[in-house]
């Protein structure tokens, strides 16, 4: 044993004293708390704790343009509780049996939630969270048979049978961890639902509303001990949204498109309002509210036809001959080729050591001026024009002017901006130089160029408006959820203003009208009720007998811009070839302007909506 120096012995004594001091002080403090002041703490412990119960705010309702068709609303979902202290022991098993039958929950599950130790608890124990209204009604009607049973309701999202509108409305789901981190400061809790797609996601802030609270004083057993009425903070429901969607036109467009992979957009060019937006295949928003949402969601994700995609603005495709509209505008504005000058189409052009065939094989279109070249969609004319008269810089600059490769700014999430290729882009991407062949491909909308149907609808809108594109939008009005008073009306917002002269647009419009009167769309667009102008497109995608089919158009041709609509139809090459895009547009125009449904309209113009018998024509 080491001898401890005297000094250290003293110090050890001090340590001892410190420890004794610590223990004594703590004991005295504890004695003071637990013995002398006990009553104070006991009453404190039994007195109050303020129990706050959240009253979830109903999510804002979504209506179509008319303000009458409810697209997304709420229903009440019921939770059922047992208050053990109010349930007499003698009746316990009987009540549990009845509940089990009514709520369709196994008896054991209910019993497991009611252990013996809870027998005298005043707190409510949740038995079921999604009970049906019928079950709750039955309990309420025979409440004397259900002592100690209570229920509460909370609003649950409910969708109408939306069909193709599902992809616009979107759906809600439980907040994810990542979303929660971002939304925490906005007062979200982990059980909250948030918008996951479409309008539900885009306007989450407006739709969400503000949860309310009931605060009441409860004792330590959870028994309500407040004498006064509970303090209630009413929930503030989410705003009511009125969409620009016209349910009638949506239905027409949906039926005109039929079960074909593709999309339809009907747009009001004077405001940018989207009247209809159909994508096929679509999903059903209602499955996201069902119990086995996980499985259904996986099936949707794994579906090779990608029903979660809104093809109208989230897909981009080669635009084919519809792009000739841009070249025509460029030729007119730049006066690159005199509109009267004719270029001879022999059905074939030799360039760069290979043969470039027009869609009309030898002997070809013959000599065509600009007007007829656009009407007949002659490839030879536009190859020559693009390569020899306009050049790639001009084409790119005009394409940009028409909105290619740029966001449309639509008020829906995750739009596809497509791709407008430029020489710099090609060098960066492929490390290859831009060739005149690339220019020729671009001139007829093939090659690298990609655009979404919405971008093409915007192109037509710009022509109708003589150079102005209004930002396309789905939301029309925001209204108060209870009084329905107008809070905010979405005003047309200029997305882009072109410097192209109105004279060019006038000429271009008449040329586009020519496409229907004496051009490629003469046969399919035969409606008599409205004068349509537009451009067809048939895009090569590497398949031998099938092509993407486009028709982008506006009408009535003779009406002022504010009364016109733009219709863009797009049928993917994955469908059997029937050149359906112009036929679908034809039915849509007929139905809208003759005030018919799609079936009657189809009959009136001599088209079978089922298709198949149609003999298509490829340009």
């Amino acid at each position, binding site marked *: 044993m080491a001898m401890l120096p005297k000094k250290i012995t003293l110090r*050890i004594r001090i340590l001892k004293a410190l420890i004794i001091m610590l223990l004594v002080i*703590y004991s005295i403090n504890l004695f003071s708390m637990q013995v002398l002041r006990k009553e104070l703490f006991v009453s404190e412990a039994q007195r109050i704790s303020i129990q706050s119960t959240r009253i979830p705010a109903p999510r804002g309702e979504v209506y179509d343009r008319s303000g009458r068709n409810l697209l997304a609303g709420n229903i009440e979902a019921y939770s059922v509780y047992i208050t053990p202290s109010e349930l007499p022991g003698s009746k316990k098993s009987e009540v549990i049996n009845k509940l089990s039958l009514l709520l369709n929950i196994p008896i054991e599950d209910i019993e497991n939630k009611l252990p013996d130790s809870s027998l005298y608890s005043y707190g409510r124990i949740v038995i079921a969270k999604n009970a049906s209204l019928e079950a709750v009604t039955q309990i309420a009607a025979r409440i004397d048979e259900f002592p100690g049973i209570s229920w509460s309701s909370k609003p649950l999202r409910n969708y109408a049978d939306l069909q193709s509108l599902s992809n616009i409305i979107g759906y809600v789901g439980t907040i994810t961890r990542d979303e929660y981190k971002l939304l925490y400061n906005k007062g979200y809790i982990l059980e909250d639902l948030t918008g996951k797609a479409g309008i539900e996601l885009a306007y989450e802030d407006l739709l969400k509303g503000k949860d309310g609270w009931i605060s009441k004083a409860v004792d330590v057993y959870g028994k309500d001990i407040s004498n006064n009425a509970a303090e209630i903070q009413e929930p503030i429901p989410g705003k009511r949204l009125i969409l620009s969607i016209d349910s009638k036109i949506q239905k027409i467009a949906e039926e005109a498109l039929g079960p074909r992979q593709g999309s339809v957009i009907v747009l009001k060019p004077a405001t940018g309002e989207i009247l209809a937006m159909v994508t096929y295949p679509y999903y059903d928003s209602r499955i996201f509210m069902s119990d086995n949402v996980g499985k259904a969601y996986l099936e949707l994700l794994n579906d090779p036809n990608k029903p979660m995609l809104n093809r109208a603005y989230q897909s981009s495709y080669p635009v084919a001959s519809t792009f000739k509209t841009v070249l025509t505008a460029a030729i007119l504005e730049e006066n690159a080729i005199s509109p009267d000058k004719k270029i001879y189409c022999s059905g074939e052009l030799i360039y760069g050591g290979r043969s470039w065939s027009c869609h009309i094989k030898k002997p070809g279109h013959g000599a065509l001026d600009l007007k007829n070249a656009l009407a007949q969609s002659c490839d030879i004319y536009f190859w020559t024009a693009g390569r020899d008269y306009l050049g790639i810089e001009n084409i790119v600059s005009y394409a940009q002017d028409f909105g290619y490769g740029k966001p449309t700014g639509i008020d829906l999430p995750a739009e596809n901006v497509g791709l407008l290729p430029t020489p710099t882009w090609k060098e960066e991407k492929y490390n290859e130089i831009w060739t005149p062949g690339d220019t020729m491909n671009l001139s007829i909308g093939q090659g690298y160029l990609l655009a979404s149907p919405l971008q093409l609808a915007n192109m037509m809108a710009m022509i109708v408006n003589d150079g102005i594109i209004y930002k396309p939008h789905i939301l029309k009005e925001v209204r108060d959820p209870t009084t329905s008073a107008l809070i905010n009306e979405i005003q047309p917002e200029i997305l882009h203003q072109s410097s192209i002269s109105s004279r060019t647009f006038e000429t271009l419009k008449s040329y586009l009208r020519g496409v229907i009167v004496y051009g490629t769309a003469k046969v399919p667009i035969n409606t008599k009720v409205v004068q349509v102008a537009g451009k067809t497109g048939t895009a090569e995608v590497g398949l031998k007998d099938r092509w993407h089919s486009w028709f982008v158009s506006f009408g009535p041709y003779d009406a002022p811009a504010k009364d016109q609509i733009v219709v863009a139809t797009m049928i993917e090459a994955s469908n059997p070839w029937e050149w359906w895009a112009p036929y679908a547009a034809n039915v849509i125009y007929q139905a809208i302007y003759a005030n018919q449904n799609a079936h009657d309209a189809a009959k009136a113009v001599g088209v079978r909506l089922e298709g198949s018998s149609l003999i298509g024509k490829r340009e």
Partner: protein
Amino acid sequence: MKSQSFKRLFGNIDYYLLFSCFLLCALGIVAIYSSGIDAEGVTVSNEYLKQIIWFGIGVFLLIAAAVFDFSRYKDMVWILFAFAILLLIITLLAGKVVNGARSWLGIGGIGIQPAEFTKIATVLMLARYLESAEFDSSFKKLLMTGLIMSIPLALILAQPDFGSALVFIPAALVMLTLADVDFQYILFGVLSIVGVFLFLSLPLYASNHPNPENILFTAITNKNVLIAILIFILVISIISGIGWLKFKKRYYYWLSYSMAILAISTIGAIIAHSILKPYQIMRLLVFIDPSIDPKGSGWNILQSITAIGSGGFWGKGFLQGTHSHARYIPQQSTDFIFSIIAEEFGFVGCIVLFILYGILLFRCIVLIETSKDRFSQYVIGGLLGIFAFHFMINIGMAMGIMPVTGIPLYFVSYGGSSLWTGLISIGILTGISARRYSA
């Protein structure tokens, strides 16, 4: 011969120490079981089962630590220390964040808190140093102790785990006390820490009150004023330092001494303010005045105090603690384990706990007095400092007379790392006690 030495070995083991330690562990498991019951009487947590498993493994660790003769291999303790530092670095780089601190190291659900084991390694390292520096000056001992300690301290502060980092200081203080370091140095350390705490919390307290009445508050909340004061203090301490060296007048020395404490406190407070998370700062404030934030940080303290006080003399009985079972108190099984013991077993139960801890601490002192070498004495002193500090802070916090720093009550609180650290420490002490009279 052999059997006789075995007998002597076992005969010398401090059974009081083992006895109180095991009883504390048992009390802990009972309390953890109780904390896992909700107001409806449903067992919502199986923490007590895990604690039992950890205790079982911990007993083997205890035996292993007792069998290993640390004072024989004291020249090797630096390996242990280096390993602990390495673990801390790995934790910083690849650790898991729990409660805002990157303090967990592990795979899947299994993990350890290296900061816990670092405490033992650092105590061993310091003991080795102090033993080798027996005849060095007080100042050198203090400086070297500070240097050795600063490595794990900085790494733990970087996690940041303020509570665990704090524990190193009392351990070192007890060891320095035993190492015959001048009291004025030890006092210097204690006062600096108190100063840091005061300077950290006062301006925060002021900023949370709409009308700071005290001019002192304005002085230390204003950055420019603060810098001016800091420069002033530094200048005075340097001048008085020079004065002392030159004139050897005693009052120069004390002036410089107190000014240096002020300077360290201010700088420390500024550094701590940048390291601490807002919730930790709030806890410091709440210590001063729990009603400052009764629904937030003050909630724990108010609920814990209420639970303890309502326990009364005899307690409400096992599993009958209404306040605890309403799950009003977060971290019931770790930081606030004392409140459930106090509520259910009352004053009597708490006094039993105090007595058990008292036995543990006093046996440490007896061991210091009887152990055969300085190294062992330092080790015991360090462990004693750690135990006492954890006891003081954890129980003081539950009673509302210490700030909430979130450190466990050794042996009682739920948690594998802290339980093992406690049991290994007891193992080391048992080993020392067994060998104390052997040559």
